């Protein structure tokens, strides 16, 4: 059912957009049966990469959110808990400030997101609190706040006519500038992170159990937790580096998926991936269709996400509580 929903969302994403094209024309171009050159440019270079990127980013953020929530045994966790979004944001705005080419900006965002989480993990190890959830979260908050301060500093130093708007737009998240090369570069990193999560999803589910129970099932909790954190971080950093900061997807979509599948991670993860992909494709289709100019994705996901999240809370989503 979810897969069919995703297919419908993808279809809607490909069909709907500001450049006027008849459905028949779109199908002809997709089938390689000629059609207008202009329509081919729009479809192959703009719309398809964008729909694909929306699906990838949505799946990545939602999947990482589900993984983090399970590892931290906390339903309020989102993928930026360890500062990966803040770090990636700082790297990207630094790239904008330095006037780097777009790919270098994305690379800097990706690298800085990973570096922040590496720093957090290193710090917790140095505190001899390796693997302890509370120490991780606190270090994540502290380093994330530092990265946030870095973003503010960059905004202050940026050229207000030129760089500041670019920084603001980047921090609100958008897929408006997505090109084929962006998708091609982010895809391997996202797959490399999602694959271990998918393959180990039964074992990862045990991490939601109390520590001693999980151990008695033969799970090396410390190492597995580290692996999940690394994989989810890789996925988030890759997604954020091409899309900018998009909140709420990683927090909300796993909750929606739990309503369908229940809390077991091995069932939750595939559902979350499909739902996240479909959700972001639809939201992004709205982002480029509701007005003549782009509505930043971060705004749309918050406007949709906050009420849905509250509704889930009010219904006391039985998904999480045992």
């Amino acid at each position, binding site marked *: 059912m979810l897969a069919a929903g995703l297919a419908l969302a993808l279809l809607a994403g490909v069909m709907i957009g500001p*450049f006027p094209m008849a459905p028949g024309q779109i199908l002809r171009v997709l089938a390689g049966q000629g059609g207008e050159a202009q329509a081919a440019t729009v479809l192959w270079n*703009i719309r398809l990469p*964008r729909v694909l990127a929306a699906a990838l980013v949505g799946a990545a953020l939602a999947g990482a959110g589900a993984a983090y929530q399970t590892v931290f045994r906390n339903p309020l966790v989102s993928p930026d808990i360890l500062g990966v979004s803040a770090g990636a944001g700082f790297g990207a705005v630094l790239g904008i400030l330095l006037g780097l080419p777009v790919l270098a900006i994305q690379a800097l965002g990706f690298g800085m997101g990973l570096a922040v989480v590496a720093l957090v993990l290193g710090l917790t190890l140095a505190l001899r609190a390796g693997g302890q959830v509370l120490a991780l979260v606190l270090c994540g908050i502290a380093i994330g706040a530092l990265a946030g301060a870095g973003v503010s500093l960059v905004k202050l130093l940026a050229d207000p006519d030129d760089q500041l708007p670019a920084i603001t737009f980047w921090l609100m998240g958008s897929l*408006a500038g997505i090109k084929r090369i962006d998708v091609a570069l982010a895809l391997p990193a996202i797959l490399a992170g999602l694959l271990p999560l998918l393959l180990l999803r039964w074992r990862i589910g045990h991490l939601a159990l109390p520590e001693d129970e999980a151990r008695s099932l033969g799970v090396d909790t410390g190492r597995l937790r580290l692996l999940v954190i690394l994989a989810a971080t890789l996925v988030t950093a890759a997604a954020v580096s091409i899309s900018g900061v998009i909140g709420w997807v990683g927090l909300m979509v796993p909750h929606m998926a739990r309503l369908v599948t229940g809390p077991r991670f091995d069932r939750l993860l595939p559902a979350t991936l499909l739902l996240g992909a479909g959700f972001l494709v639809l939201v992004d289709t709205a982002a480029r269709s509701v007005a*003549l100019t782009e509505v930043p994705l971060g705004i749309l996901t918050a406007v949709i996400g906050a009420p849905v999240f509250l509704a889930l809370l009010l219904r006391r989503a039985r998904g999480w509580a045992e």
Partner: protein
Amino acid sequence: MKHLIPAALKAAALLVLAALPAAAFDGPTQTVTDATGRSVEIPADPARVFAAGPPAATLLYALKPQAMLGWVRAPKQADLPYLLPLTQALPELGRLTGKGDTLNLEVLLAARPDLIVDYGTVNATYRDLAERVQDQAQLPYVLIDGSLDAMPASIRAMAGVLGVAERGEALAAYAEDSFAKADALLATVPAAQRPKVYLARGPEGLETAGRGSINAEIIERMGAVNVAQSEGKGLLTVSAEQVQAWAPDVIITIDRDFAASVGNMPEWQGIPAVAQGRVYLAPSRPFGFIDSPPSVNRLIGLKWLAQKLYPAQAKGDLAAEVAGFYALFYGVTLDDAAVSALLGD
């Protein structure tokens, strides 16, 4: 006891009055009414003037560069050949108005200004800001209307404030003449021949400014149709697909990287402006032709736009116009090589 309280109040009032500097200028003063209707007493010939934002700094530079205390943002290395030597090394003091003050009032006072001028939006926020700074720093603060249509009057007003009425008259006459020439040109171009224009900003060209935005104002003033519509006045992002749908005849950009790479970006192919090679990079030194800042620098931008938008109808030698404008407004003499470097042909 009954008499004590009024007496104490009177003493306190006297103390407060004594603490207020009674218009602490040595020389002659004049009283001006600024664009917000505030009456401000200022020195007749202010020698040290602080400009609150980039538009005011550009206007101050054009009218009375010797009175400048500093820049809001220091000019870049590449801007220096187009600026008077006496202003090249002035410090960067930060901005006082707009989004985020970067100026410390103590730094401002340490520069010992006679006067603060601002040139831009006139509304309750800026009026209040002028009042507050004037109260806090005890410096006269004059706000001049920065809208494009009011430019000749605003140049005269600012010149009056700065005590350079004659120079102001010369620049204001130039502004009036520029607007008149633009209108005369537009009268010869029927509506059907006016191009659709997209203003591309940012390295991807996907930031733009909509109709009514100060950042794109002169495109509409020059009779073209800005394809981007929006409710807000700020900058917006769009997608390449939206630009494809708009199919602009001309793309004006202020981004060097975008201008260089648009020809190779597959998602921009097929747009009439790209197909016909009508993507133009607006010159930016020392001040932009389109905006950045939205000040008197846009007068030469109007003439540049006229040549780019209406190549068949626009007459005149752009290089000579540019050299004349830079001599009159910026006080620099450009040779042919400097003009072509500036225009990028």
